[in-house]
């Protein structure tokens, strides 16, 4: 589904990702771990096409297509979703309206009829229940005045609605208390299926107790320095990241 080869990404002229390889097959869950500043968000943003993140080398393919050649909105409509580490506030824009616009943009892309207000409300109600989203959150402005936890839940809510093929979750666990973490994880686990893949970026092992990954990769100073199964996460929890600092031979996934 996603094939990344030797991906290099620069921000404001500084090379941040120095050659990342990653292969994600449908149905898999990959965790990307690593210390702060190692480039995890950079990877997520580059894959979703943030204009500030300049790809200087390597390639990324999504379902065989050149991902890097697609506009960010096209990537999204094709089924790449990123849950933001820092969701953006849009003042005055009704959250429900925003979701409807996003969903209909995608439906239009696939030649499906747009949902009317009634159908949309029904869909929203279903999804909101699973993620314990309060209806009032839909009538507020997008992320405006949301608590950290509400913002993160809103991201996963959007994911549930848009049903992406590939979901990249950037530190979705940060800012969540244990109850919220459980709700969000249940939401994600409920969406796991053989056709959908997840790339879960996290700094802490905690999330991976709830969303159990198939593979764990450690990113350090812009390179994947170690890859393994879910037990790698536990090892990291015990030992910290110190023993894996860049300079160690990178291990491909």
């Amino acid at each position, binding site marked *: 589904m996603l094939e990344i080869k030797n991906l290099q990404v620069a921000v404001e002229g500084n090379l941040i990702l120095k050659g990342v390889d990653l292969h994600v097959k449908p149905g898999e869950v990959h965790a990307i771990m690593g210390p702060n500043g190692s480039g995890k968000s950079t990877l997520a943003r580059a894959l979703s096409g943030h*204009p500030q993140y300049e790809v200087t080398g390597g390639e990324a393919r999504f379902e065989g297509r050149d991902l890097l050649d697609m506009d960010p909105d096209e990537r*999204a409509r094709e089924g790449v979703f990123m849950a933001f580490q820092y969701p953006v506030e849009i003042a005055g824009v009704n959250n429900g309206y925003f979701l409807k616009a996003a969903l209909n943009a995608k439906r239009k892309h696939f030649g499906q009829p747009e949902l009317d207000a009634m159908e949309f409300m029904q869909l929203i109600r279903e999804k909101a229940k699973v993620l314990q989203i309060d209806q009032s959150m839909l009538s507020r402005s997008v992320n405006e005045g949301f608590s950290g936890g509400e913002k993160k839940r809103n991201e996963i809510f959007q994911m549930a609605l*848009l049903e992406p093929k590939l979901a990249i979750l950037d530190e979705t666990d940060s800012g969540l208390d244990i109850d919220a973490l459980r709700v969000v994880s249940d939401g994600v686990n409920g969406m796991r299926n053989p056709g959908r893949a997840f790339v879960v970026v996290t700094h802490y092992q905690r999330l991976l107790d709830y969303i159990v990954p198939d593979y764990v990769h450690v990113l350090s100073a812009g390179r994947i320095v170690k890859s393994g199964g879910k037990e790698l996460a536990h090892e990291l929890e015990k030992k910290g990241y110190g023993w894996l600092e860049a300079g160690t031979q990178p291990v491909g996934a």
Partner: protein
Amino acid sequence: MSTSTETIEQLATREYKYGFVTDVETETIPKGLSEDVVRLISEKKGEPEWLLEWRLKAYRLWLTMKEPTWQNVKYEPINYQDIVYYSAPKKKKVLNSLDELDPEVKRTFDKLGIPIEEQKLLSGVAVDAVFDSVSVATTFRAKLAEQGIIFMSFSDAVHEHPDLVKQYLGSVVPYTDNFFAALNSAVFSDGSFVYIPKGVRCPMELSTYFRINAKDTGQFERTLIIAEPGSFVSYLEGCTAPMRDENQLHAAVVELVAHDDATIKYSTIQNWYPGDKDGKGGIYNFVTKRGLCQGRGSKITWTQVETGSAITWKYPSCILQGDNSIGEFYSVATTNNWQQADTGTKMIHVGKNTRSTIVSKGISAGHGQNTYRGQVRVGKNATNARNYSQCDSLLIGDKCGAHTFPYLEIRNTTAKVEHEASTSKIGEDQIFYCRQRGLTSEDAVNIIVSGFCREVFRELPMEFAVEAQKLLSVSLEGSVG
């Protein structure tokens, strides 16, 4: 793949879909302004002597006045002798029914989406259509008259209701007020007249649609709305013009009078031709609008969505004379490409317990310059006056500008005046967030901008809020690549 410089700030051509010209036989007087021209206009309209005298006084005063220069806009000096002051589609003497209207003119309004045939009307909106210098059709006149409501062209009102016109004309905006008001008073050719009798709630939206068609012609219309005690009226004006390389002058005057407990909602959707992407052509929109809250508990609300014109210069204002009267001003002004706007309001608190609210949203894109200029004045006797002002500016790209000039003049210590202002840039992160959810960058800008304007849009009559939103998105087209 798009880079950051491509995402924001890329200017493309924008489409002005109202830019067509109607080929219609007109009666047009030669260019230039003189006492004879003033007399000629008055004569063409068969006006009474007192009105001609009033025009002449205005004209003579205008000759002694200087064009204002304090506003934050730049333009080449206007040659007032190079303007045509009267142009009208030729018609039979009296227009008894719409069938007698020039089919080309009728088609023009059809094309603009303005229904001037009553049977075509859907949503209970009565329309007065002004084509160049004259009103060509007013719908629902008879139906409104059943309730004593007068809605007709200004020219008709001069003949049919001379006492009302005489009593109120110039009572809120005297011809001495300013350069453009004096000019308008001398040469105004038509406009709308509205009178709502005591206790009557006007059952439909009243709307005037202004269309400039003829070349080199100025449009100088005058609107007068009188709301008797306890009455209510919601009025909307819209305007468009053909695309021309020359600038055209539009200098209107609007006067509103609200008596005890009367409410006037006056909404404007201004979409005059803004000029092309290089700043060539476009309308100079120099307008004086003022409302007098004369009665106790009266209320005047100005709502404007200003997307067109090369230059906009207008300050719809309220004089809060009656105790407990309320003045409101809600404004969205966009400037894209080379457009300039200097707009805002004046809230003049005279009576006790008067309240005013100002919400101004300025959006600048391209090389657009957007200035908010607002004055809040609280007089000596205006005990417990309240004002709340909020001025927000949104910048798209970094070649445009936003400026805010609030003026406060407080002469009563019990006054409470609050002012909030903000300037923000439309964020690359906001656009990216929307795009990551599948919206195109144009849709992203539209969504962000409409969110920014929400407090103003919700003041518009339902039927027009959607149109305003569309207009806004068209006017910002090409502001983001």
